[in-house]
């Protein structure tokens, strides 16, 4: 399966109403199973790009193909994890992890909101498996206001992965966490990515996170973006000279953008 272009961004234009354009004729390709990071200064449109890939925003021109199909609305096989506020405050950890399954049961396998073929296994067993896998079994009956920031993001990850996505999109997933928790969750993300052969795109403003999580890095400078600037990543080893070299390269590029 690997090798084929899985996500194809074809010459898209995008701007918000009454704002200068963010993307003009922008093209980019992601192969199946790849781990990408998207980095750039704030306001460069990296979150917008993620929302475009998620089908939550539509380009004004051009199109995005995923697995060969034009993207018109959020795909059931794409998972999105945001920095904050993504969990239902009125539901427990278990309820939040089960949310996607409940939404699918609500619509039935219509191919639009949920895939045509339902997931194998009982929903309760799937939820239990992912609670266990992410070490959440002890807080399963607590509400989001009762758990730590790291546990909240674990809950968001479990909620996404329980649906067996083929594409995982993350927007600054760990930036509000303290350093040890952040590195812990970054390691976990790599493990999960390897286990499931997931295609991942992580948007971040952190240089270290981009180089650690991205085997390829898309660099967004000053908008409008007309072409994809891609940097080949390194092995995820925080002390390797190559890792540090890539970090300093990115730092120089970001500083160059800042200085204009």
């Amino acid at each position, binding site marked *: 399966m690997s090798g084929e272009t899985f996500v194809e961004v074809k010459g898209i234009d995008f701007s918000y109403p009454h704002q200068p354009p963010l993307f003009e004729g922008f093209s980019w390709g992601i192969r199946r199973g790849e781990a990408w990071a998207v980095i750039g200064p704030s306001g460069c449109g990296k979150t917008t790009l993620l929302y475009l890939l998620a089908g939550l925003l539509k380009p004004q021109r051009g199109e995005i193909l995923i697995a060969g199909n034009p993207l018109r609305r959020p795909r059931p096989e794409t998972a999105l994890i945001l920095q904050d506020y993504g969990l*239902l405050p009125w*539901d427990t950890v278990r309820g939040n992890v089960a949310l996607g399954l409940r939404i699918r049961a*609500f619509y039935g396998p219509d191919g639009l909101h949920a895939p045509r073929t339902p997931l194998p296994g009982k929903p309760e067993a799937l939820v239990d498996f992912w609670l266990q896998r992410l070490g959440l079994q002890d807080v399963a009956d607590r509400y989001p206001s009762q758990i730590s920031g790291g546990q909240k993001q674990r809950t968001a990850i479990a909620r996404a992965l329980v649906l067996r996505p083929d594409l995982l999109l993350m927007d600054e997933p760990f930036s509000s966490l303290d350093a040890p928790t952040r590195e812990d969750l970054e390691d976990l993300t790599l493990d999960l990515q390897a286990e499931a052969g997931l295609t991942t795109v992580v948007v971040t403003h952190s240089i270290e996170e981009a180089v650690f999580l991205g085997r390829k890095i898309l660099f967004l400078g000053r908008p409008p973006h007309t072409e994809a600037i891609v940097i080949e990543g390194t092995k995820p080893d925080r002390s390797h000279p190559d890792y540090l070299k890539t970090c300093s390269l990115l730092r120089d590029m970001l500083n160059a953008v800042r200085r204009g």
Partner: protein
Amino acid sequence: MSRRSLLLALIVLLLVWQLLAIIVHRPILPAPWEVLKAFFLALPGELGKHLLSSFWRVLASITLGIVAAAPLGIAIGQSASLSRLLSPLIYLLYPIPKVVFVPVAILFLGLGDLAKILIIFLIIFFQILVLVRDQAAALRPELILSVRSLGAGRRALFRFVYLPATLPAIFTAIRQSTGTAIAVLYVAELFATKYGLGYYIYITGSTLFDYPAMYAGILAMSLLGLGLYFGVDWLERKLCPWLFVHSH
């Protein structure tokens, strides 16, 4: 608030009442035990019927108010254009004391239940509408986006996000409007009607001069308000358990 402190407050209230009754020493202020006797004697008979018809009117108004105002409030809260269109109208209508429409409602709808229910409904409707609208508008866009990314369309968003998110606002609105609703119900029931606590209090007091019975009616009306208040509290604890947990 503990049960013990509530009980203590009740005892203090009864003592003050008893004291006042002794000081005033006139038939228009009977002692508490006399009123309680009248209350329990009349409750299985006439008073019970009056209480039930008042209760039914309030309950019907609250139910209609929730059914009409909650979905509309959610719709206005999540749509900026709908809000631009309707919020000025709500802004003008919300502060009008709905009690002034009692004669109008009776002229149009007659003396039956409908006119009385409509007035109470209007009070509750606007309270729920405003609070639910604000609650729905205050939801973080990140939450909506992440639930949409799980496959939720309009219907699932309503069911899994907007409905549970605005439930506390509905309870708060009912709690806030209960007092006004009961007061207005009293006024509405003064106008020619067969059953209703307002009518009962009025007739026993100013026509029959049966003061213990009048106070029994006042007690029944207070209990109606109190019962609704406690009922809402109880339901909120059942349906919104996340509001009552200790944070991290």
